């Protein structure tokens, strides 16, 4: 939706009744689980944090500093996830984010990410970047153009 390198990212998540887990969460009263709201924010901000340092490091979610939910996210809702970088250093980053649906504030989430190559000196990790792999990068190139120009890809 919007992407300002090193500053903020906005993403959209459409909550659909077709998502299988909603049949069980909860039977007869589908609600998007809070854990998945956090995951959605982690994905949005993970890309933001990774891109800010040109995907040099593997970015791992290290800590959910805060997660406050005010309202339920339900099928039919279009969630707008906005992540803003608060801190960005060589070994870690923190973001604060909000999830809205139209004018309703659904949740406020603060996350901390670790750049594992820098913060875990001495620990061996696979050479290849398993967080931002090739197929992810090519997808991102496609959508980034979109977000920066404001013109949707065909």
């Amino acid at each position, binding site marked *: 939706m919007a992407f300002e390198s090193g500053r903020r990212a906005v993403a959209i998540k459409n909550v659909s009744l077709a998502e299988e887990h909603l049949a069980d969460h909860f039977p007869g009263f589908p609600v998007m689980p809070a854990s998945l709201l956090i995951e959605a924010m982690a994905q949005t901000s993970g890309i933001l944090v990774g891109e800010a340092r040109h995907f040099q490091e593997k970015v791992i979610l290290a800590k959910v*500093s805060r997660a406050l939910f005010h309202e339920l996210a339900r099928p039919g809702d279009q969630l707008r996830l906005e992540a803003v970088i608060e801190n960005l250093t060589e070994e870690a980053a*923190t973001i604060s984010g909000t999830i809205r649906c139209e004018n309703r504030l659904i949740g406020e989430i603060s996350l901390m990410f*670790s750049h594992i190559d820098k913060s875990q000196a001495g620990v061996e990790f696979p050479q290849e970047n398993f967080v931002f792999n090739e197929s992810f990068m090519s997808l991102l190139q496609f959508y980034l153009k979109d977000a920066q120009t404001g013109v949707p890809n065909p």
Partner: protein
Amino acid sequence: MTISQEEICTKVRETLVDALGVDDDEITDDATLMGDLGAESIDFLDIVFRLEKAFGIKIPREELFPPENLLNDPQYVTNGRLNESGLEKLKEQMPHVDFTEFAKDPDLNKMPDLFRVKSICDYVGNKVNAG
């Protein structure tokens, strides 16, 4: 501008409450971050970020909490204990910490006990009111 040590401690407590999700009354001067307050390694970085923001200071990496490289360096560590030069080095790097107790038995496993609420207050106090 000088800020009183009391004000600094209040702010440090608030920071720890936010960063570690603990209750205000758990944060005594002597509470150890890892043992008593349940901090993990990633929390240390979080605390540093929050202190920098709360006080508008810059905290150089590895100044408030000791560097890993020291602990993995055979020059400073013998048989799971800090040797004399290791202890000297650590004291030099962390002048805000009271080493009296630790120096009697500098077992690496006891290192976490060095990080207490009071030592953070002292560190920030020096930092804020320096110069």
